[in-house]
């Protein structure tokens, strides 16, 4: 499954939390690749391991609780898993950057925007104070912040949420990273700002040919921005498909449920939205079989006993014994 064009390759990544007595596998054998200029979406509900995956790639897992127990993470061929911290530090913010869900708290409140942005470029590009300032200004203008010169001297609390998220994007892309990881970048923003921020990310991605990993639980965002999608459930990858295939022909029953649950304008108003019944099982007590079986209308005894492997189905890959629109596997 190796891909020579891929910028980021994640292979059979496993992340565990806790000590030997009670280790919980938060990410279980996740694999994907992202090519330059492309966007991969990782979707799933809270606690499914999508943020943990992104933190593992950045080498930011909370220590000593979380650790990568197996698998590989390669950024343009360089193995990141197990790389010493001082080498990771030179990569973070320079070759790969990350923006976070909470623009309100992600910036240091006691330093100006200019100081924080300059610190990043000075650290990685070794620019002089003045050149760093110029780069910061240029980046702020690029993400469409009006009166950028004045904003440099302002503190985070003087900016709106959307503005702060744009500052984060400007900062993340100020060293021209080849990979951008965006963890729920628009979740905390209102809808009109969401669209602008996503547009901004896409524009910069085109300009710099950046690969983007977009973590979200919003399928609307996925439909608008992603080229390929990984659907995660309980730390496992249940489906991976090109974005068109995912929406036109969802294969996994969980994906199918998610897509049906998107609120949309219907000719006849529903009395209630379709939901995926049940709730996510506890990660420390996962069933031996398919982890979605307990909530799945199509599950049989086979699903409860054995874990489905990821199988190719048209352009998609799916881990399900009874995928949608298919002849029974057995």
């Amino acid at each position, binding site marked *: 499954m190796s891909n020579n064009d891929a910028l980021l390759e994640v292979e059979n990544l496993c992340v565990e939390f806790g000590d030997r007595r009670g280790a919980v596998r938060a990410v279980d054998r996740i694999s994907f690749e992202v090519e330059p200029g492309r966007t991969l979406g990782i979707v799933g509900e809270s606690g499914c391991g999508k943020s943990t995956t992104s933190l593992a790639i*950045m080498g*930011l897992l909370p220590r*000593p609780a979380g650790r990568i127990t197996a698998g590989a993470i390669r950024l343009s061929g360089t193995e990141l898993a197990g790389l010493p911290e001082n080498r990771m*530090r*030179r*990569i*973070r*913010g*320079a070759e790969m*950057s*990350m923006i*976070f869900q*909470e623009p*309100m*708290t*992600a*910036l*240091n*409140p*006691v*330093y100006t925007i200019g100081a924080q942005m300059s*610190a*990043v470029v000075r*650290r*990685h590009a070794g620019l002089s104070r003045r050149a760093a300032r110029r780069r910061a200004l240029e980046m702020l203008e690029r993400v469409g912040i009006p009166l950028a010169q004045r904003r440099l001297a302002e*503190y985070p*609390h003087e900016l709106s949420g959307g503005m702060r998220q744009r500052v*984060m994007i400007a*900062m*993340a892309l100020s060293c021209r990273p080849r990979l951008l990881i965006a963890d729920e970048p628009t979740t905390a923003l209102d809808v009109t700002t969401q669209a602008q921020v996503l547009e901004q990310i896409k524009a910069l991605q085109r300009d710099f040919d950046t690969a983007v990993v977009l973590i979200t639980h919003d399928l609307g965002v996925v439909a608008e921005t992603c080229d390929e999608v990984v659907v995660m459930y309980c730390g496992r990858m249940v489906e991976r498909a090109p974005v068109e295939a995912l929406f036109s022909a969802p294969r996994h029953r969980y994906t199918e449920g998610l897509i049906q649950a998107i609120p949309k304008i219907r000719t006849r108003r529903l009395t209630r939205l379709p939901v995926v019944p049940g709730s996510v099982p506890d990660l420390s007590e996962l069933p031996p079989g398919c982890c979605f079986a307990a909530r799945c209308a199509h599950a049989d005894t086979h699903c409860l006993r054995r874990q489905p492997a990821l199988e190719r189905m048209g352009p998609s890959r799916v881990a399900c014994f009874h995928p949608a629109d298919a002849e029974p596997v057995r």
Partner: protein
Amino acid sequence: MEILKYTLRKLAGGIPLLLGVTLVSFVLMVYFGPDKTWELLSKNPTAEEIAQVRSQLGYDQPFWVRYGNYLRELATLEFGYSDSTGERVTTILQRTVPVTLALLAPGFVLGIVLGIALGLLAAWHRGGWIDRAVTGLAVVGMSVSFLVVIIAFQLLFGVVLGWFPVRGWNVHDLPSYLHYVTVPTLASVFVALGYNTRFFRAVLVEEMARDHVRTARAFGASPVEILRKNVLMNAMIPIVTRTMFSIPLVVISGSLLIESYFGIPGVGKVTYDAITSGDQPVLKAVIGLTAVMFVGILIVNDILYKFFDPRISLGRTALQ
């Protein structure tokens, strides 16, 4: 410019506070304080004699006049003469306040600085054995009474080891100062350090869990840079508050205990003697000046807030 305006506003805001605090201390200590009339009278005085003495003491004046006199005394730092020694109160203070400051300053500064250092160490290794050792020792330090610490240190350093004097204050140069200040300093550091370490550890742990710390890591900041810019700079508000507000506590309780146990002629000892002998001029001076110090500390505290946190503005609070 803005910070100057802020400072002036805070100073102006301190005036009513000052009036309130001095009013309360006046009412409690002077107006309803010890009445010296009967001490100055012979047995079976006549009504005229009583009235004469009361007028000498100024007791017949109306409340506001007496409060005004008290304020004037505070403003001019002229409190009259001590009842017990007849010495001018201002002279007593000039002699004893420097001793107290010299005595307490090293212990106070070391207690804060070491508290922050140990708190940082424990917070950085949170959950590890270093953290457990530091917090465990802090609890031990907190559990021992100040009096026990003083006596134990006096015994250890003064009697058993015989390294340092544990009585008196015969200070005339730096070596003699260090000689006399060491044991009191060790005792007050020992007592303050447990509380300070636990407090600063909690504050720093909270700051280390902030989102912007993770952002800084995600942008390749080094641990030293994160500790300085993200953790310490953001923890300055609680650090400043803690530091400023422990000054009155150290000055009052610290000097009272240490000076009486070490026989050091500082302001704490003078106050203690004045309380036991009802020496009102001295008490008025000490209580009034302590109240003024409190207000001064509050104002300086607010100005330091503004200095460390750009979100603090005049009047309205800038909410996130």
